[in-house]
């Protein structure tokens, strides 16, 4: 055992003895980031050498990168040395074999969040790969999926069991040089989900993962990779919430999607992390890189997001349309209230011929919330007959909130057709009075109006998620008009 590792272990143990913030036992390294921490993470996860090398390359590159300043969000500089980069639930002897065996405390938390796993499983036939902090603790329906040759597991497991796939695709859509937070994630990611749908297979169920941030001051660095081989279809659902904490919690996930010829990937997110208190203290910083590559001809990638949480959101789920006739879609509802700030949107990079993309973005601002739509539509020189339709609507619910739009359009091929529509409306006292005058109470009126505004996006969500999203919206915007 090297001296460094020894020191680390001592530190870990000391932390361990000092007790933990949650009742679930955790394995947490002290705050700070250097190559030893990365080696520790890699070793802890018993990773192969190539994985460690990749992490270290990412880390060394990250050190050279400047912190991005261009987003229309404001926050004090993050001290990356004050963050702890590894935290995993203590595994007792074995992993739980079924959901009944999972830690009752964990189950209780999920239940409080309104996401009872067993119910989800029974009602919706959803295979759940739950991520508590950084390590998967529950997986289900694996056998059923395996019959079809589908791999749905944690990223750590994939690195062990399917190294050839991980090596081939990890970082192929979002390289570690891509941006600051993706670089950081590549160096220190702890876990996430891995999905592989073989050629010609339609995934028989919605795949879902519930992410949750738990340990105070622990950065969350999820890494998700979804590969859809030729002619395959998959729909993936991601939903998140977080409990109240005082410290800011950095979340810098990376999600990579790959669709080969004729494959379709649909990725839906409902994000409801802690947005901070009335002054915006303590909320989650959600700095996420999500990108899909339509690598094959006639492939399709569709993003739907409902973003209601986090103190700061910095997120642009994007599509690179490399295959001919490939299709990219982005449907988004984002809510900022209190002191929340969001700079979100998408990028549609058209490279193949006859590629099409659709962007529908609905922003709702209330309280002192500030929201920016930032989108790029790029038509590269070889993208003949590319088409894009963009629609960005903003709704203002107070006199103190803000909505901003930064649409970038870069057309390098004259055959392209682009449409861009944008509206800004104030949720009218008139609209509310109109509803009141028909007997509808104000809170029902707000929910009716907002859900109407978001309808085009909600209808792209899988059914059970759409219902949840509507509920979330109602709860989120209670008492927001003013």
């Amino acid at each position, binding site marked *: 055992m090297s001296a460094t590792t020894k020191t680390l272990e001592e530190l870990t143990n000391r932390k361990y003895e000092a007790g933990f913030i949650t009742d679930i036992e955790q394995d947490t390294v002290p705050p700070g980031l250097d190559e030893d921490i990365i080696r520790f993470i890699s070793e802890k996860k018993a990773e192969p050498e190539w994985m460690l090398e990749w992490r270290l390359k990412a880390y060394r590159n990250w050190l050279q990168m400047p912190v991005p300043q261009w987003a229309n969000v404001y926050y004090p500089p993050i001290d990356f040395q004050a963050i702890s980069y590894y935290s995993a639930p203590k595994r007792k002897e074995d992993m739980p074999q079924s959901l009944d065996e999972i830690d009752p405390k964990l189950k209780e938390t999920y239940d409080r969040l309104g996401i009872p796993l067993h119910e989800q499983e029974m009602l919706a036939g959803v295979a759940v790969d739950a991520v508590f902090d950084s390590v998967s603790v529950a997986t289900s329906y694996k056998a059923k999926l395996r019959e079809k040759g589908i791999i749905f597991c944690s990223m750590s497991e994939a690195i062990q069991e399917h190294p050839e796939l991980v090596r081939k695709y990890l970082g192929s859509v979002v390289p570690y040089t891509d941006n600051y937070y993706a670089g950081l994630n590549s160096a220190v990611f702890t876990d996430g989900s891995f999905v592989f749908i073989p050629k010609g297979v339609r995934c028989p169920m919605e795949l879902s993962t519930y992410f949750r941030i738990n340990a105070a001051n622990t950065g969350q660095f999820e890494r998700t990779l979804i590969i859809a081989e030729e002619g395959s279809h998959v729909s993936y659902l991601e939903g998140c919430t977080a409990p109240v904490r005082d410290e800011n919690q950095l979340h810098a996930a990376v999600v990579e999607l790959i669709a080969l010829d004729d494959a379709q990937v649909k990725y839906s997110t409902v994000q409801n992390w802690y947005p901070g208190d009335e002054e915006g203290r303590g909320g989650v910083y959600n700095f996420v890189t999500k990108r899909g590559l339509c690598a094959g001809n006639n492939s399709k990638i569709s993003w739907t997001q409902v973003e209601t949480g986090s103190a700061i959101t910095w997120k642009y789920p994007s599509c690179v349309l490399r295959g001919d006739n490939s299709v990219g879609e982005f449907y988004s509802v984002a809510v900022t209230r209190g002191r929340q700030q969001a700079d979100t949107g998408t990028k549609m990079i058209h490279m193949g011929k006859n590629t099409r993309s659709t962007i529908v973005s609905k922003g709702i601002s209330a309280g002192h919330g500030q929201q920016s739509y930032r989108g790029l539509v790029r038509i590269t020189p070889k993208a003949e007959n590319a088409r894009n339709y963009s629609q960005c609507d903003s709704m203002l619910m107070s006199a103190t909130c803000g909505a901003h739009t930064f649409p970038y359009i870069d057309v390098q091929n004259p055959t392209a057709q682009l449409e861009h529509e944008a509206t800004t409306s104030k949720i*009218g*006292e*008139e*609209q509310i*009075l*109109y*509803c*009141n*005058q*028909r*007997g*509808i*109470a*104000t809170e*029902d009126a707000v929910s*009716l*109006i907002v*859900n*109407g*505004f*978001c*309808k*085009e996006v909600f209808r792209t969500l899988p059914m059970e998620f759409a219902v949840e999203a509507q509920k979330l919206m109602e709860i989120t915007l209670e008492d927001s008009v003013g």
Partner: protein
Amino acid sequence: MALLEIRNLHAQIQGVEILKGIDLAIERGETHAIMGPNGSGKSTLAKVLAGDPSYEVTGGEVYFQDRNLLELAPEDRAREGVFLGFQYPVEIPGVSNTYFLKAALNAIRKYRGEQELDAMEFLQLIKERAKSVKLDEALLRRPVNDGFSGGEKKRNEIFQLAVLEPYLAILDETDSGLDIDALRTVADGVNSLRSEERGFLVITHYQRLLNYIIPDKVHVLLHGRIVKSGGKELAEELEESGYALFEEAAA
């Protein structure tokens, strides 16, 4: 007691007094018309009765079926049976007319302790009512007033009136912006809804609507006061001589 009784009602918006002492009583089964020039306070009266929070009531009383209307929230006034046909019906994108009306009707029924209608019963009801006011059924599926023509919006108001069946319907310049055919359709709709149970307060600029909706009483509103009340012949008199005659009386 009258269906609606307004006593010495004063109201202001942003510190400017608009209603300066209105007295008016409407019995069940009666249709009253309020006429007056721009800025006389016609629409303010309608909005104050509906409970628009941008207006402040500074004096007077309003009783509706023996209840103190001014104490009620706007939605409760609607549930008690006061309906306002808006001068400018509001658009609610993404919310279908059907969904909106079902929410409204069931909120009203719940308030009254009645059973809420299920989807089938409700659909049957609105199809029948759409027919009775000659509303194109396609409009039922469209978002509330979104992309409707002026005439369609007004017809939609009358359709909502037919579905919600209030005890008092206040129609705020329902005739404005309508061509003669649309005016007729709207008036026919209103006439078909007149009953012994129900009162109407029809607010208008012009006499022409009153050729189709024959009022029992006509009131002339000027500078926030009713300066003259009379029968339907008063409307004709106004048409001939204009408001100038009353200006002098008001001064």
